[in-house]
Protein backbone atom coordinates (compact mmCIF):
# COMPACT_ATOMS: atom_id res chain seq x y z
CA UNK A 1 0.00 0.00 0.00
CA UNK A 2 1.27 3.47 -0.86
CA UNK A 3 1.73 5.97 1.94
CA UNK A 4 -1.00 8.40 0.86
CA UNK A 5 -3.36 5.45 0.51
CA UNK A 6 -2.59 4.49 4.10
CA UNK A 7 -3.15 8.02 5.35
CA UNK A 8 -6.43 8.15 3.48
CA UNK A 9 -7.54 4.84 5.02
CA UNK A 10 -6.67 5.95 8.54
CA UNK A 11 -8.43 9.23 7.99
CA UNK A 12 -11.53 7.37 6.84
CA UNK A 13 -11.47 5.11 9.87
CA UNK A 14 -11.17 8.16 12.15
CA UNK A 15 -14.19 9.80 10.53
CA UNK A 16 -16.28 6.64 10.91
CA UNK A 17 -15.17 6.21 14.54
CA UNK A 18 -15.94 9.78 15.58
CA UNK A 19 -19.19 9.72 13.61
CA UNK A 20 -20.36 6.65 15.51
CA UNK A 21 -19.27 8.17 18.83
CA UNK A 22 -21.24 11.29 18.02
CA UNK A 23 -24.41 9.31 17.29
CA UNK A 24 -23.92 7.34 20.50
CA UNK A 25 -23.45 10.42 22.68
CA UNK A 26 -26.40 12.11 21.02
CA UNK A 27 -28.65 9.10 21.76
CA UNK A 28 -27.40 9.01 25.31
CA UNK A 29 -28.25 12.67 25.94
CA UNK A 30 -31.70 12.30 24.41
CA UNK A 31 -32.37 9.24 26.57
CA UNK A 32 -31.19 10.99 29.70
CA UNK A 33 -33.47 13.92 29.01
CA UNK A 34 -36.38 11.59 28.30
CA UNK A 35 -36.01 9.60 31.54
CA UNK A 36 -35.79 12.89 33.37
CA UNK A 37 -33.25 11.42 35.76
CA UNK A 38 -30.23 13.41 34.71
CA UNK A 39 -26.76 11.98 34.97
CA UNK A 40 -25.40 11.60 38.48
CA UNK A 41 -24.19 9.01 40.95
CA UNK A 42 -25.66 10.34 44.21
CA UNK A 43 -28.22 7.47 44.31
CA UNK A 44 -25.27 5.15 44.95
CA UNK A 45 -25.37 6.10 48.61
CA UNK A 46 -29.07 5.42 49.14
CA UNK A 47 -30.10 2.12 50.77
CA UNK A 48 -30.30 -0.74 48.31
CA UNK A 49 -33.26 -2.34 50.12
CA UNK A 50 -32.75 -5.73 48.50
CA UNK A 51 -31.29 -8.79 50.13
CA UNK A 52 -28.25 -10.67 48.90
CA UNK A 53 -28.04 -14.40 49.49
CA UNK A 54 -24.32 -14.39 49.24
CA UNK A 55 -21.98 -11.78 50.72
CA UNK A 56 -18.35 -12.35 51.72
CA UNK A 57 -18.52 -9.14 53.84
CA UNK A 58 -21.39 -8.10 56.16
CA UNK A 59 -24.39 -6.84 54.18
CA UNK A 60 -28.02 -5.96 55.00
CA UNK A 61 -30.71 -4.50 52.78
CA UNK A 62 -30.26 -1.11 54.50
CA UNK A 63 -26.71 -0.86 53.15
CA UNK A 64 -26.08 1.40 50.19
CA UNK A 65 -26.19 0.55 46.50
CA UNK A 66 -22.47 1.23 46.38
CA UNK A 67 -21.83 -1.39 49.04
CA UNK A 68 -24.11 -3.86 47.25
CA UNK A 69 -22.13 -3.31 44.05
CA UNK A 70 -18.86 -3.81 45.87
CA UNK A 71 -20.20 -7.08 47.34
CA UNK A 72 -21.15 -8.11 43.80
CA UNK A 73 -17.66 -7.30 42.61
CA UNK A 74 -16.21 -9.44 45.41
CA UNK A 75 -18.60 -12.27 44.52
CA UNK A 76 -17.43 -12.05 40.91
CA UNK A 77 -13.81 -12.05 42.01
CA UNK A 78 -14.45 -15.05 44.25
CA UNK A 79 -15.98 -17.17 41.52
CA UNK A 80 -13.44 -16.06 38.91
CA UNK A 81 -10.39 -16.71 41.07
CA UNK A 82 -11.58 -20.11 42.31
CA UNK A 83 -12.57 -21.28 38.82
CA UNK A 84 -9.34 -19.91 37.41
CA UNK A 85 -7.19 -21.90 39.83
CA UNK A 86 -9.20 -25.11 39.47
CA UNK A 87 -9.43 -24.81 35.68
CA UNK A 88 -5.68 -24.32 35.46
CA UNK A 89 -4.99 -27.48 37.45
CA UNK A 90 -7.59 -29.54 35.63
CA UNK A 91 -6.66 -28.14 32.23
CA UNK A 92 -2.97 -28.86 32.81
CA UNK A 93 -3.70 -32.46 33.79
CA UNK A 94 -5.94 -32.98 30.77
CA UNK A 95 -3.40 -31.28 28.51
CA UNK A 96 -0.71 -33.65 29.85
CA UNK A 97 -2.98 -36.65 29.33
CA UNK A 98 -3.74 -35.47 25.82
CA UNK A 99 -0.05 -35.36 24.86
CA UNK A 100 1.10 -38.29 26.99
CA UNK A 101 2.05 -41.77 25.88
CA UNK A 102 -1.01 -43.50 27.35
CA UNK A 103 -3.40 -43.83 24.43
CA UNK A 104 -6.50 -44.57 26.55
CA UNK A 105 -5.99 -41.42 28.66
CA UNK A 106 -5.31 -39.51 25.45
CA UNK A 107 -8.58 -40.69 23.96
CA UNK A 108 -10.59 -39.86 27.08
CA UNK A 109 -9.13 -36.37 27.33
CA UNK A 110 -9.67 -35.74 23.62
CA UNK A 111 -13.32 -36.73 24.11
CA UNK A 112 -13.65 -34.45 27.13
CA UNK A 113 -12.19 -31.50 25.24
CA UNK A 114 -14.46 -32.05 22.24
CA UNK A 115 -17.67 -32.43 24.23
CA UNK A 116 -17.00 -29.49 26.53
CA UNK A 117 -15.96 -27.17 23.72
CA UNK A 118 -18.90 -28.02 21.51
CA UNK A 119 -21.69 -27.38 24.03
CA UNK A 120 -22.79 -23.83 24.91
CA UNK A 121 -21.57 -22.68 28.32
CA UNK A 122 -25.05 -21.55 29.31
CA UNK A 123 -26.34 -25.07 28.79
CA UNK A 124 -23.52 -26.51 30.87
CA UNK A 125 -24.21 -24.07 33.72
CA UNK A 126 -27.91 -24.96 33.69
CA UNK A 127 -26.95 -28.62 33.74
CA UNK A 128 -24.72 -28.28 36.80
CA UNK A 129 -27.23 -26.11 38.61
CA UNK A 130 -30.43 -28.03 37.98
CA UNK A 131 -29.09 -31.55 37.55
CA UNK A 132 -25.99 -31.33 39.68
CA UNK A 133 -27.12 -29.41 42.73
CA UNK A 134 -30.84 -28.71 42.82
CA UNK A 135 -31.32 -32.37 41.99
CA UNK A 136 -30.01 -33.25 45.43
CA UNK A 137 -32.44 -33.76 48.29
CA UNK A 138 -32.93 -30.84 50.65
CA UNK A 139 -32.28 -32.85 53.75
CA UNK A 140 -28.64 -33.61 54.24
CA UNK A 141 -27.66 -35.81 51.36
CA UNK A 142 -24.11 -36.71 52.08
CA UNK A 143 -22.41 -36.24 55.39
CA UNK A 144 -18.86 -37.29 55.99
CA UNK A 145 -17.35 -37.29 59.47
CA UNK A 146 -19.44 -34.24 60.49
CA UNK A 147 -17.18 -31.87 58.54
CA UNK A 148 -18.50 -32.30 55.03
CA UNK A 149 -22.17 -31.88 54.08
CA UNK A 150 -23.73 -31.90 50.65
CA UNK A 151 -27.34 -30.94 50.03
CA UNK A 152 -29.33 -28.87 47.54
CA UNK A 153 -28.34 -25.84 49.65
CA UNK A 154 -24.77 -26.41 48.64
CA UNK A 155 -21.73 -27.79 50.36
CA UNK A 156 -20.59 -27.13 53.87
CA UNK A 157 -17.01 -27.98 54.60
CA UNK A 158 -15.88 -27.52 58.20
CA UNK A 159 -17.75 -24.26 58.70
CA UNK A 160 -17.17 -22.88 55.18
CA UNK A 161 -20.43 -22.75 53.24
CA UNK A 162 -20.59 -22.79 49.47
CA UNK A 163 -24.02 -22.17 47.97
CA UNK A 164 -25.31 -24.37 45.17
CA UNK A 165 -25.36 -21.29 42.93
CA UNK A 166 -21.70 -20.61 43.58
CA UNK A 167 -20.80 -24.29 43.15
CA UNK A 168 -22.73 -24.73 39.92
CA UNK A 169 -21.22 -21.59 38.42
CA UNK A 170 -17.74 -22.37 39.62
CA UNK A 171 -17.90 -25.99 38.48
CA UNK A 172 -19.37 -25.02 35.12
CA UNK A 173 -16.75 -22.33 34.48
CA UNK A 174 -13.97 -24.64 35.67
CA UNK A 175 -14.94 -27.46 33.36
CA UNK A 176 -15.60 -25.19 30.39
CA UNK A 177 -12.35 -23.28 30.77
CA UNK A 178 -10.26 -26.37 31.55
CA UNK A 179 -10.99 -27.79 28.09
CA UNK A 180 -9.60 -24.64 26.48
CA UNK A 181 -6.64 -24.50 28.85
CA UNK A 182 -5.89 -28.16 28.03
CA UNK A 183 -5.55 -27.16 24.38
CA UNK A 184 -3.29 -24.23 25.28
CA UNK A 185 -1.09 -26.56 27.34
CA UNK A 186 -1.01 -29.11 24.53
CA UNK A 187 0.01 -26.45 22.04
CA UNK A 188 2.80 -25.34 24.36
CA UNK A 189 4.06 -28.87 24.87
CA UNK A 190 4.05 -29.53 21.13
CA UNK A 191 6.13 -26.40 20.60
CA UNK A 192 9.07 -28.07 22.37
CA UNK A 193 11.27 -30.07 20.01
CA UNK A 194 11.18 -33.87 19.95
CA UNK A 195 14.88 -33.95 20.73
CA UNK A 196 14.20 -32.63 24.24
CA UNK A 197 11.91 -35.59 24.93
CA UNK A 198 14.48 -38.02 23.60
CA UNK A 199 17.22 -36.40 25.67
CA UNK A 200 15.42 -36.67 29.00
CA UNK A 201 14.14 -40.15 28.24
CA UNK A 202 17.58 -41.42 27.33
CA UNK A 203 18.82 -40.10 30.69
CA UNK A 204 16.36 -42.37 32.47
CA UNK A 205 14.04 -39.58 33.64
CA UNK A 206 10.42 -40.63 34.02
CA UNK A 207 7.78 -39.11 31.75
CA UNK A 208 6.35 -37.12 34.65
CA UNK A 209 9.68 -35.70 35.79
CA UNK A 210 10.70 -34.93 32.23
CA UNK A 211 7.45 -33.14 31.55
CA UNK A 212 7.76 -31.01 34.67
CA UNK A 213 11.50 -30.32 34.65
CA UNK A 214 12.32 -30.22 30.95
CA UNK A 215 9.27 -29.77 28.73
CA UNK A 216 7.01 -27.47 30.73
CA UNK A 217 9.61 -24.77 31.48
CA UNK A 218 10.34 -24.53 27.77
CA UNK A 219 6.65 -24.60 26.86
CA UNK A 220 5.68 -21.76 29.25
CA UNK A 221 6.55 -18.86 26.92
CA UNK A 222 4.14 -20.36 24.39
CA UNK A 223 1.54 -21.13 27.06
CA UNK A 224 1.29 -17.83 28.98
CA UNK A 225 -0.36 -15.65 26.28
CA UNK A 226 -2.98 -18.34 25.54
CA UNK A 227 -3.59 -18.79 29.24
CA UNK A 228 -4.10 -15.05 29.73
CA UNK A 229 -6.74 -14.90 27.03
CA UNK A 230 -8.54 -17.91 28.55
CA UNK A 231 -8.53 -16.18 31.95
CA UNK A 232 -10.03 -13.05 30.39
CA UNK A 233 -12.71 -15.18 28.73
CA UNK A 234 -13.42 -16.80 32.07
CA UNK A 235 -13.92 -13.40 33.68
CA UNK A 236 -16.35 -12.36 30.95
CA UNK A 237 -18.16 -15.72 31.03
CA UNK A 238 -18.67 -15.37 34.78
CA UNK A 239 -21.44 -12.85 34.02
CA UNK A 240 -23.59 -15.86 33.12
CA UNK A 241 -23.96 -16.07 36.91
CA UNK A 242 -27.32 -14.42 36.42
CA UNK A 243 -28.59 -17.63 34.79
CA UNK A 244 -28.13 -19.65 37.96
CA UNK A 245 -29.04 -16.81 40.30
CA UNK A 246 -25.60 -16.11 41.71
CA UNK A 247 -25.20 -12.49 42.85
CA UNK A 248 -22.20 -11.39 40.85
CA UNK A 249 -21.55 -7.80 39.80
CA UNK A 250 -23.59 -8.21 36.64
CA UNK A 251 -26.64 -9.69 38.39
CA UNK A 252 -26.60 -6.96 41.06
CA UNK A 253 -26.23 -4.29 38.40
CA UNK A 254 -29.24 -5.75 36.68
CA UNK A 255 -31.33 -5.58 39.87
CA UNK A 256 -30.29 -1.99 40.47
CA UNK A 257 -31.22 -0.94 36.92
CA UNK A 258 -34.66 -2.44 37.48
CA UNK A 259 -35.08 -0.60 40.76
CA UNK A 260 -33.63 2.80 39.89
CA UNK A 261 -33.73 3.04 36.12
CA UNK A 262 -30.11 4.22 36.22
CA UNK A 263 -29.11 2.13 33.21
CA UNK A 264 -26.40 4.43 31.92
CA UNK A 265 -24.63 4.93 35.21
CA UNK A 266 -24.87 1.22 35.95
CA UNK A 267 -23.50 0.45 32.54
CA UNK A 268 -20.51 2.67 33.22
CA UNK A 269 -19.98 1.05 36.63
CA UNK A 270 -20.07 -2.40 35.03
CA UNK A 271 -17.60 -1.29 32.40
CA UNK A 272 -15.20 0.05 35.01
CA UNK A 273 -15.61 -3.06 37.21
CA UNK A 274 -14.67 -5.33 34.36
CA UNK A 275 -11.88 -3.09 33.28
CA UNK A 276 -10.49 -3.39 36.82
CA UNK A 277 -10.93 -7.17 36.85
CA UNK A 278 -9.29 -7.62 33.48
CA UNK A 279 -6.45 -5.26 34.31
CA UNK A 280 -5.88 -7.30 37.45
CA UNK A 281 -5.67 -10.51 35.42
CA UNK A 282 -3.57 -9.08 32.59
CA UNK A 283 -1.10 -7.42 34.94
CA UNK A 284 -0.71 -10.49 37.12
CA UNK A 285 -0.01 -12.58 34.03
CA UNK A 286 2.40 -9.94 32.75
CA UNK A 287 4.31 -10.10 36.03
CA UNK A 288 4.41 -13.90 35.88
CA UNK A 289 5.59 -13.73 32.28
CA UNK A 290 8.36 -11.32 33.23
CA UNK A 291 9.45 -13.52 36.15
CA UNK A 292 9.70 -16.48 33.78
CA UNK A 293 11.67 -14.49 31.23
CA UNK A 294 13.97 -13.28 33.99
CA UNK A 295 14.57 -16.82 35.20
CA UNK A 296 15.47 -17.80 31.63
CA UNK A 297 19.02 -16.60 31.62
CA UNK A 298 19.49 -18.06 28.16
CA UNK A 299 18.22 -16.44 25.00
Amino acid at each position, binding site marked *: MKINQKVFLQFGICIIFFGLMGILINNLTINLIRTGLGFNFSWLFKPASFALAEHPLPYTSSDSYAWALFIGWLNSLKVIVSSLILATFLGTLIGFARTGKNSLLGLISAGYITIVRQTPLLLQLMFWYFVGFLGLKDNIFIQIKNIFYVSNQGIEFSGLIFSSEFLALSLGLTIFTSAYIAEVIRGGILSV*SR*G*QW*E*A*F*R*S*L*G*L*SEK*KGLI*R*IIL*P*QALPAIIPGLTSQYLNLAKNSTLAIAVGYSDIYAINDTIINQTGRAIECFIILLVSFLLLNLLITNTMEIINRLILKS*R*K*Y*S
Partner: protein
Amino acid sequence: MEPIVIAKNLTKSYTKGLRALDNVSLKVNRGKVLVVMGPSGSGKSTLIRTFNGLEAFDNGELNILGIKIDSTHDERKIQKIRRRVGMVFQQFNLFPHLSILENITLAPIHVQKRRQIEAEEYGMYLLSQMGIDSHAKKYPSQLSGGEQQRVAIARALALKPELLLFDEPTSALDPERVNEVLDAMRRLAEQGMTMVVVTHEISFAKDVSDQVLFMDSGKVIETSPPNIFFSNARHERSRKFLNQLDKH
Protein backbone atom coordinates in the same frame (compact mmCIF):
# COMPACT_ATOMS: atom_id res chain seq x y z
CA MET B 1 34.14 -61.88 26.07
CA GLU B 2 31.12 -60.37 27.74
CA PRO B 3 28.44 -59.31 25.25
CA ILE B 4 26.91 -55.87 25.95
CA VAL B 5 24.56 -55.70 22.98
CA ILE B 6 23.00 -58.70 21.30
CA ALA B 7 20.36 -58.03 18.66
CA LYS B 8 18.52 -60.94 17.09
CA ASN B 9 16.42 -60.52 13.95
CA LEU B 10 15.21 -57.01 14.75
CA THR B 11 12.47 -55.89 12.41
CA LYS B 12 10.58 -52.64 12.37
CA SER B 13 8.29 -50.80 9.97
CA TYR B 14 7.06 -47.24 10.47
CA THR B 15 4.76 -47.55 7.49
CA LYS B 16 3.35 -50.83 6.25
CA GLY B 17 5.51 -52.65 3.76
CA LEU B 18 8.53 -50.38 4.28
CA ARG B 19 11.06 -51.92 6.63
CA ALA B 20 13.24 -49.47 8.53
CA LEU B 21 14.88 -52.50 10.15
CA ASP B 22 14.88 -55.80 8.33
CA ASN B 23 16.08 -58.82 10.29
CA VAL B 24 19.03 -57.05 11.90
CA SER B 25 21.34 -59.17 14.08
CA LEU B 26 24.56 -58.03 15.68
CA LYS B 27 26.72 -58.34 18.76
CA VAL B 28 28.98 -55.88 20.58
CA ASN B 29 31.30 -57.11 23.33
CA ARG B 30 32.43 -55.10 26.36
CA GLY B 31 35.08 -52.53 25.54
CA LYS B 32 34.50 -52.72 21.80
CA VAL B 33 33.56 -49.97 19.38
CA LEU B 34 31.08 -50.66 16.60
CA VAL B 35 30.75 -48.09 13.84
CA VAL B 36 27.50 -48.12 11.87
CA MET B 37 27.55 -46.75 8.33
CA GLY B 38 25.07 -46.59 5.51
CA PRO B 39 23.25 -44.24 3.16
CA SER B 40 20.59 -41.83 4.39
CA GLY B 41 17.39 -43.59 5.35
CA SER B 42 19.06 -46.98 5.69
CA GLY B 43 17.88 -47.35 9.31
CA LYS B 44 21.03 -46.47 11.29
CA SER B 45 19.27 -44.11 13.68
CA THR B 46 16.34 -46.45 14.07
CA LEU B 47 18.72 -49.28 14.95
CA ILE B 48 20.68 -47.57 17.70
CA ARG B 49 17.55 -45.94 19.11
CA THR B 50 16.10 -49.38 19.75
CA PHE B 51 19.12 -50.07 22.01
CA ASN B 52 17.85 -47.68 24.72
CA GLY B 53 14.16 -48.03 23.98
CA LEU B 54 13.63 -44.69 22.25
CA GLU B 55 12.24 -46.74 19.40
CA ALA B 56 10.12 -49.87 19.76
CA PHE B 57 10.45 -52.72 17.27
CA ASP B 58 7.95 -55.16 15.80
CA ASN B 59 9.86 -58.40 15.89
CA GLY B 60 13.06 -59.90 17.22
CA GLU B 61 14.90 -59.67 20.50
CA LEU B 62 17.39 -57.37 22.15
CA ASN B 63 19.73 -58.11 25.02
CA ILE B 64 21.33 -54.98 26.44
CA LEU B 65 23.65 -55.54 29.41
CA GLY B 66 21.79 -58.75 30.15
CA ILE B 67 18.38 -57.08 30.12
CA LYS B 68 16.18 -58.69 27.49
CA ILE B 69 13.51 -56.71 25.68
CA ASP B 70 11.21 -57.64 22.84
CA SER B 71 8.39 -56.11 20.83
CA THR B 72 6.29 -55.61 24.01
CA HIS B 73 8.56 -52.68 24.91
CA ASP B 74 8.45 -53.31 28.68
CA GLU B 75 8.78 -49.82 30.20
CA ARG B 76 10.34 -51.03 33.45
CA LYS B 77 13.10 -52.90 31.70
CA ILE B 78 13.69 -50.00 29.35
CA GLN B 79 14.01 -47.68 32.34
CA LYS B 80 16.65 -50.02 33.77
CA ILE B 81 18.53 -50.01 30.48
CA ARG B 82 18.46 -46.23 30.23
CA ARG B 83 20.16 -45.90 33.60
CA ARG B 84 23.11 -47.85 32.25
CA VAL B 85 23.29 -46.59 28.66
CA GLY B 86 24.20 -43.06 27.57
CA MET B 87 23.23 -41.43 24.29
CA VAL B 88 24.63 -38.52 22.28
CA PHE B 89 22.54 -36.95 19.50
CA GLN B 90 23.34 -35.19 16.26
CA GLN B 91 21.59 -32.00 17.43
CA PHE B 92 23.14 -32.17 20.96
CA ASN B 93 19.69 -31.77 22.55
CA LEU B 94 21.04 -29.98 25.61
CA PHE B 95 18.39 -28.53 27.91
CA PRO B 96 18.47 -24.81 27.00
CA HIS B 97 16.90 -23.62 30.26
CA LEU B 98 19.50 -25.32 32.44
CA SER B 99 23.13 -24.31 32.95
CA ILE B 100 25.87 -26.59 31.64
CA LEU B 101 26.47 -28.06 35.08
CA GLU B 102 22.73 -28.48 35.71
CA ASN B 103 22.43 -30.32 32.40
CA ILE B 104 24.98 -32.80 33.67
CA THR B 105 23.76 -33.20 37.24
CA LEU B 106 20.06 -33.56 36.35
CA ALA B 107 20.07 -37.34 35.90
CA PRO B 108 22.43 -38.14 38.80
CA ILE B 109 20.28 -36.08 41.18
CA HIS B 110 16.82 -37.05 39.91
CA VAL B 111 17.39 -40.56 38.62
CA GLN B 112 20.15 -41.88 40.86
CA LYS B 113 19.13 -39.71 43.84
CA ARG B 114 22.69 -38.59 44.47
CA ARG B 115 23.44 -35.62 46.70
CA GLN B 116 23.77 -32.37 44.79
CA ILE B 117 27.32 -31.66 45.98
CA GLU B 118 28.44 -35.12 45.00
CA ALA B 119 26.77 -34.85 41.58
CA GLU B 120 28.30 -31.43 40.98
CA GLU B 121 31.77 -32.61 41.94
CA TYR B 122 31.58 -35.50 39.50
CA GLY B 123 30.00 -33.20 36.89
CA MET B 124 32.92 -30.79 37.17
CA TYR B 125 35.33 -33.70 36.83
CA LEU B 126 33.59 -34.81 33.62
CA LEU B 127 33.61 -31.26 32.24
CA SER B 128 37.33 -30.98 32.92
CA GLN B 129 37.84 -34.30 31.14
CA MET B 130 36.07 -32.75 28.16
CA GLY B 131 38.13 -29.55 28.53
CA ILE B 132 35.13 -27.29 29.12
CA ASP B 133 34.99 -26.88 32.91
CA SER B 134 35.34 -23.10 32.53
CA HIS B 135 31.85 -23.03 30.94
CA ALA B 136 30.06 -24.79 33.82
CA LYS B 137 27.91 -21.80 34.77
CA LYS B 138 27.02 -20.81 31.21
CA TYR B 139 23.93 -21.82 29.26
CA PRO B 140 24.01 -24.04 26.15
CA SER B 141 23.24 -21.18 23.73
CA GLN B 142 26.43 -19.43 24.85
CA LEU B 143 28.64 -22.30 23.65
CA SER B 144 29.91 -23.32 20.22
CA GLY B 145 28.56 -26.47 18.60
CA GLY B 146 31.69 -28.46 19.42
CA GLU B 147 31.55 -27.35 23.04
CA GLN B 148 27.86 -28.19 23.26
CA GLN B 149 28.48 -31.66 21.92
CA ARG B 150 31.23 -32.22 24.48
CA VAL B 151 28.77 -31.15 27.19
CA ALA B 152 26.31 -33.68 25.76
CA ILE B 153 28.98 -36.38 26.04
CA ALA B 154 29.69 -35.36 29.64
CA ARG B 155 25.94 -35.49 30.33
CA ALA B 156 25.72 -38.98 28.87
CA LEU B 157 28.67 -40.03 31.06
CA ALA B 158 27.17 -38.66 34.26
CA LEU B 159 25.29 -41.87 35.04
CA LYS B 160 28.54 -43.87 34.62
CA PRO B 161 27.11 -45.82 31.68
CA GLU B 162 28.45 -49.15 30.48
CA LEU B 163 27.44 -48.45 26.88
CA LEU B 164 27.46 -45.20 24.91
CA LEU B 165 25.38 -44.63 21.79
CA PHE B 166 26.30 -41.89 19.31
CA ASP B 167 24.01 -40.89 16.43
CA GLU B 168 26.07 -38.85 13.95
CA PRO B 169 27.65 -36.77 16.74
CA THR B 170 29.69 -34.58 14.37
CA SER B 171 27.28 -34.11 11.48
CA ALA B 172 25.86 -30.83 12.77
CA LEU B 173 29.28 -29.30 13.50
CA ASP B 174 31.41 -26.84 11.55
CA PRO B 175 34.30 -28.81 9.97
CA GLU B 176 36.89 -27.13 12.21
CA ARG B 177 34.94 -28.26 15.29
CA VAL B 178 34.67 -31.92 14.34
CA ASN B 179 38.01 -33.04 15.71
CA GLU B 180 37.55 -31.75 19.25
CA VAL B 181 34.52 -34.04 19.55
CA LEU B 182 36.14 -37.01 17.80
CA ASP B 183 39.19 -36.65 20.07
CA ALA B 184 36.98 -36.82 23.15
CA MET B 185 35.38 -39.97 21.75
CA ARG B 186 38.78 -41.47 20.99
CA ARG B 187 39.84 -40.99 24.59
CA LEU B 188 36.68 -42.70 25.80
CA ALA B 189 37.42 -45.68 23.55
CA GLU B 190 40.96 -45.84 24.88
CA GLN B 191 39.57 -45.95 28.42
CA GLY B 192 37.65 -49.05 27.43
CA MET B 193 34.16 -47.63 26.93
CA THR B 194 31.82 -49.81 24.88
CA MET B 195 30.41 -47.67 22.07
CA VAL B 196 28.08 -47.90 19.11
CA VAL B 197 28.71 -44.96 16.79
CA VAL B 198 26.74 -43.96 13.71
CA THR B 199 29.16 -41.81 11.73
CA HIS B 200 30.56 -41.08 8.30
CA GLU B 201 33.97 -40.10 9.70
CA ILE B 202 36.22 -42.62 7.97
CA SER B 203 39.35 -41.71 9.90
CA PHE B 204 37.56 -42.23 13.20
CA ALA B 205 36.17 -45.57 12.03
CA LYS B 206 39.60 -46.68 10.80
CA ASP B 207 41.48 -45.68 13.97
CA VAL B 208 38.99 -46.46 16.69
CA SER B 209 36.45 -49.05 15.67
CA ASP B 210 36.73 -52.78 16.11
CA GLN B 211 33.98 -53.54 13.61
CA VAL B 212 32.20 -51.60 10.91
CA LEU B 213 28.59 -52.50 10.24
CA PHE B 214 27.21 -51.41 6.90
CA MET B 215 23.43 -51.07 6.45
CA ASP B 216 21.21 -50.46 3.46
CA SER B 217 17.39 -50.42 3.30
CA GLY B 218 17.14 -51.67 6.86
CA LYS B 219 19.36 -54.69 6.26
CA VAL B 220 22.85 -55.44 7.53
CA ILE B 221 24.90 -55.79 4.34
CA GLU B 222 28.17 -56.62 6.03
CA THR B 223 30.07 -56.45 9.30
CA SER B 224 33.83 -56.32 8.92
CA PRO B 225 36.90 -55.09 10.78
CA PRO B 226 37.75 -51.57 9.53
CA ASN B 227 40.97 -52.53 7.76
CA ILE B 228 39.04 -54.97 5.60
CA PHE B 229 35.93 -52.80 5.19
CA PHE B 230 37.82 -49.76 3.94
CA SER B 231 40.36 -51.51 1.73
CA ASN B 232 38.53 -54.54 0.52
CA ALA B 233 34.84 -54.45 1.36
CA ARG B 234 33.16 -57.75 0.67
CA HIS B 235 30.02 -56.36 -0.88
CA GLU B 236 29.42 -54.39 -4.02
CA ARG B 237 26.98 -52.06 -2.24
CA SER B 238 29.51 -51.26 0.50
CA ARG B 239 32.13 -50.40 -2.11
CA LYS B 240 29.71 -48.15 -3.98
CA PHE B 241 28.86 -46.34 -0.77
CA LEU B 242 32.54 -45.84 0.11
CA ASN B 243 33.26 -44.50 -3.36
CA GLN B 244 30.54 -41.92 -2.94
CA LEU B 245 31.83 -40.94 0.51
CA ASP B 246 35.29 -40.40 -0.98
CA LYS B 247 33.95 -37.96 -3.56
CA HIS B 248 32.75 -35.60 -0.82
